[in-house]
């Protein structure tokens, strides 16, 4: 390698190193402050901004969904399997909203209840046909049954 | 067939996503074809002009 090429290689390498270092620091800084969502445990521990709007993430507790008979108002409980938080929402829920599924709700706390103005469904990274999902559910049920 | 096209109610979403893919990639595929054709046409024009000038002055270069 000629000296000029070596010099270029070192110069480019140094700049890249500097940029990588800056980016790493930014990522770490963001990791501390940029929180897309808070879990019910974090909210109950007082980590979520009080009186301000934030995002709540968690699983819709099974058998907790209640729909108002005459309006689009719904109430359900969001859990992270450690703590639970009741949520109120008025509007159309996304297709993937169902009990036992993860959601992300945007809104604010009001006397211990989370009043959401938007509810988004989070889907997981698993894809399978319906009959496979049914078979897995059946196998799980059978296992639970035999364990009992 | 009609049920396939309807995608169980998701037709608008599924087909528009596939349409975006096809249209954008088609545009991407045509771009270099047109660019090369343009360059070749410009080059032919230039060579022709040079040849004509060379013939007029009787000094082919």
């Amino acid at each position, binding site marked *: 390698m000629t000296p000029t090429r070596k010099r270029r290689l070192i110069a480019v390498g140094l700049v*890249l190193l500097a940029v*990588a270092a800056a980016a790493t620091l930014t990522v770490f800084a963001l*990791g501390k402050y940029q929180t897309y969502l808070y879990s019910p445990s974090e909210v109950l521990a007082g980590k979520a901004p009080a009186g301000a709007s934030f995002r709540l993430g968690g699983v819709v507790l099974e058998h907790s969904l209640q729909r108002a008979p005459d309006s689009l108002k719904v109430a359900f409980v969001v859990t992270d399997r450690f703590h639970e938080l009741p949520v109120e929402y008025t509007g159309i829920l996304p297709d993937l909203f169902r009990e036992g599924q993860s959601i992300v709700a945007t809104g604010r706390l009001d006397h211990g209840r989370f009043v959401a103005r938007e509810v988004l469904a989070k889907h*997981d990274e698993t894809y399978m046909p319906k009959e496979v999902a049914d078979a897995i559910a059946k196998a799980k049920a059978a296992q639970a049954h035999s364990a009992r | 067939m009609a049920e396939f096209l309807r995608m169980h109610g998701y037709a608008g979403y599924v087909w528009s996503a*596939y349409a975006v893919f096809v249209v954008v990639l088609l545009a991407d595929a045509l771009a270099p074809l047109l*660019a090369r054709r343009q360059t070749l046409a410009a*080059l032919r024009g230039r060579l022709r002009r040079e040849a004509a000038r060379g013939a007029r002055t009787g000094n082919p270069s």
Partner: protein
Amino acid sequence: MNRLVLWFHRLGSPPYFYRFAGRWLPWLYALALLTGAIGFYGGLVIAPADYQQGDSFRILYVHVPCAWMSLFAYAFMAGNGFVALVWRIKLAELLAMASAPIGAAFTFVTLVTGSIWGKPTWGTWWTWDARLTSELVLLFLYFGVIGLHQAIEDLRQAARAAAFLALVGVVNLPIIHYSVVWWNTLHQAQTVNLLGESKIDARMLWPLLVLAFATHVYFFASVLARTRAALLALESGKAWVRALVAPATEPAHG
């Protein structure tokens, strides 16, 4: 080994590359089209609907290959940019600059199809989570590279400046990839894993892999086509290009 090095050196010569690319292009386009059609058929017709999302999950077959290509094209661009900066190889400059618009196109399709997918599944067209935001930053990086390349008059200087910007932007690639791990995002985690188990049924996976292959082949076809066109414009004064065009102008001489 020696022959491979020799071939690489030959490939670096513009007239050889021009002929080489011209010979391979139709085959690459045909292969991409054929495998793309098989993948689309597999994804739209053969693959069963998802147990949660139903048929809207079929957007995966355009969204995910494009997302992979948006990263791959950037890595290819940056790699060639690095070679261009250190060794000043003309062809590497052209290859780097040729991948920018293709990568931008894939990134654009990724963002749009993701948005179309997000509406029925998540319930929103867009959210500012780490994955979506970093992918949007990628699109702007591509725009920056293309813009810088076009802003500078001297073509070779322009390519080197743009290659430098491309190289700096590489830090965004791991951020995009790990965004779903490092932060809480609305976007779900990785489904297909090169090492370890993929979380997708085999009947749903194969069309995705076929389409990933098709988009890679298409990418190389498009890069070769664009590089070929750029080479012609850059070397328009050279003898080999004149010889290429000459047969058509020959009759004028009589």
